[in-house]
């Protein structure tokens, strides 16, 4: 890496995508600069509901954030990235589309779906806000989740945890899945910037010309594989040598 190293290490906090990156990290042959890696699904780190829909960060999570701050880490966040698949992987029983307004499906214009998605992501967005508030004035980046897989056959062959739902309802069109993922990305990007951070898009080497996840990065309907994880780690480590955020 050229340039000045601004951060000695990074603290990575997030949901299932962090777990996928962790595998890449552990299997990597490169010297990686990860300081702390926190998976928010784990009970001791899992944010909980406080009254009035506020987010309560558990003490262990706060301890890690404080440690990262004191060591001058770059904070890398990957919150709620899988949620586009809640609304945008399988067909809903009341089928809808964001892109096809001529079919029998209910057409939901993107502006309306964005409001729906924002509402759906409310808890995730509040977690992001709470963590960033705890990070304070330190720099942070939010990771864009991996784009969707274009190939329906792949999704049927490797359905992951969605097997039952995919069998029952089938998979939404690639166009709709992509639009829904874009809307989720836009929401997280907007919030990240509004909170003073940066939004790190999926590695371009892992994305096809039409914006879908490249075949080399395929794993399951939600996550990238080790190669994808390594590409993300490379991106993060580049940031540590970039101009200050």
């Amino acid at each position, binding site marked *: 890496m050229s340039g000045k190293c601004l951060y000695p290490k990074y603290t990575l906090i997030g949901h*299932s995508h962090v777990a996928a990156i962790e595998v890449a990290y552990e299997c990597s042959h490169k010297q990686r600069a990860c300081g702390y890696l926190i998976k928010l699904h784990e009970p001791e780190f899992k944010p909980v509901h406080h009254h009035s829909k506020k987010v309560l960060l558990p003490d262990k999570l706060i301890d890690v954030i404080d440690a990262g701050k004191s060591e001058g880490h770059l904070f890398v966040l990957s919150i709620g990235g899988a949620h586009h698949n809640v*609304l945008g992987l*399988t067909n809903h*029983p*009341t089928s*809808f589309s964001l892109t096809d*307004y001529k079919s029998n499906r209910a057409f939901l214009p*993107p502006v*309306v779906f964005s409001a729906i998605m924002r509402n759906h992501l409310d808890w995730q967005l509040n977690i992001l806000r709470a963590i960033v508030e705890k990070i304070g004035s330190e720099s942070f980046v939010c990771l864009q989740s991996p784009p969707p897989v274009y190939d329906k056959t792949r999704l049927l062959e490797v359905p992951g945890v969605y097997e039952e739902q995919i069998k029952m309802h089938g998979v939404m069109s690639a166009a709709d899945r992509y639009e829904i993922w874009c809307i989720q990305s836009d929401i997280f990007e907007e919030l990240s910037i509004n909170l003073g951070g940066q939004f790190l898009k999926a590695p371009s080497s892992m994305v096809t010309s039409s914006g879908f996840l490249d075949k080399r990065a395929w794993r*399951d309907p939600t996550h990238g594989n080790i190669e994808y994880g390594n590409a993300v780690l490379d991106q993060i480590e580049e940031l540590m040598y970039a101009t200050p955020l």
Partner: protein
Amino acid sequence: MQHPYKSSPDSARWKISVANLIPSEVDPVSSPPFKIDKSAKLVTAGSCFAQHIARHLKASGYNYFMTEPPHPIMSDDIAKTYNYGTFSARYGNIYTTRQLLQLFDRAFDKFEPRDSIWRLLNGRYVDALRPRITPNGYSLQRDVEADREYHLTQVRRLFRESEVFVFTLGLTEAWVSNLDGTVYPLCPGVAGGEFSNENYTFKNFDVDAVYDDLAEFATKLRIINPQVKFLLTVSPVPLIATATTEHVLAATTYSKAVLRVVAERFVLQFSDAYYFPSYEIITGSYTRGKYFADDLRSVTEEGVGHVMRLFFKHLAVEGLEDSPIFIAQQKDEHTQKMQGVIDTACDEEALDGVFK
């Protein structure tokens, strides 16, 4: 020989049927030519007062027919914000009969307004024929066009399948495009677009114009849907502003008078057409103004309740309780299941794919 008034019914006598009754007992509804059963597809359209009727019909257990219903993944707040369920389709307020006629013609490809997409000050786009349907507009012009095309498909379906068309006549005043006569629900420049005297003209439709448009609409509708019944009301809500040179109170009286005459003429000319006197129920002097809120425009819930109570009393086939039966919101089980899958997915899933 006795004069006719000797044998007139109580309902024909002011003292008996209005002055001497407590307000909630006043019932100016005459015998309708048809009744509505629970299976009949009821459609609403019209001015803002029609939204009250829509709201109560939805909650009533009757077949309130919507071709653009709220999707189960939508919360109530989002549905309301984006006007899903406000009317039977997302056409927004239809204030004039010319607007209604043009909606029909647009739906069946007989009319395509040339000036139909406006920009907001923030650069976003609105559908000029329903500028408030999506607050803050659309980011892309093509999104307006896509949503409109879908909407008109649903409007066609609505016109074809409706069994009782409930229309609330709202205004006689409108702004009209000089290019092609398009009537807009709002003056250009109010919610998008830019006003100019060169491009737009104010029109205050008279009785003949309002009637002719309504009659043409009804005739066209009955060609594609011969069995449809019409139920007309006149909105009791005064004008928020007039573009005439008259005082707004005088302009309001004129508008409502025109609309009331048109409604009367219409039901005399068309079979299976009925005028429901919600205007009279709300504005009748017997209320002493209590069915209007402090702004003297908004209709109170008490007033709407009186209207709907009489609506169901006289028009419903089965007797209906005064209180509407609220239908529990359909839960979106599918999304809840998918959410559950995400929530329970954990590290094992990540490790599972390591060696693939």
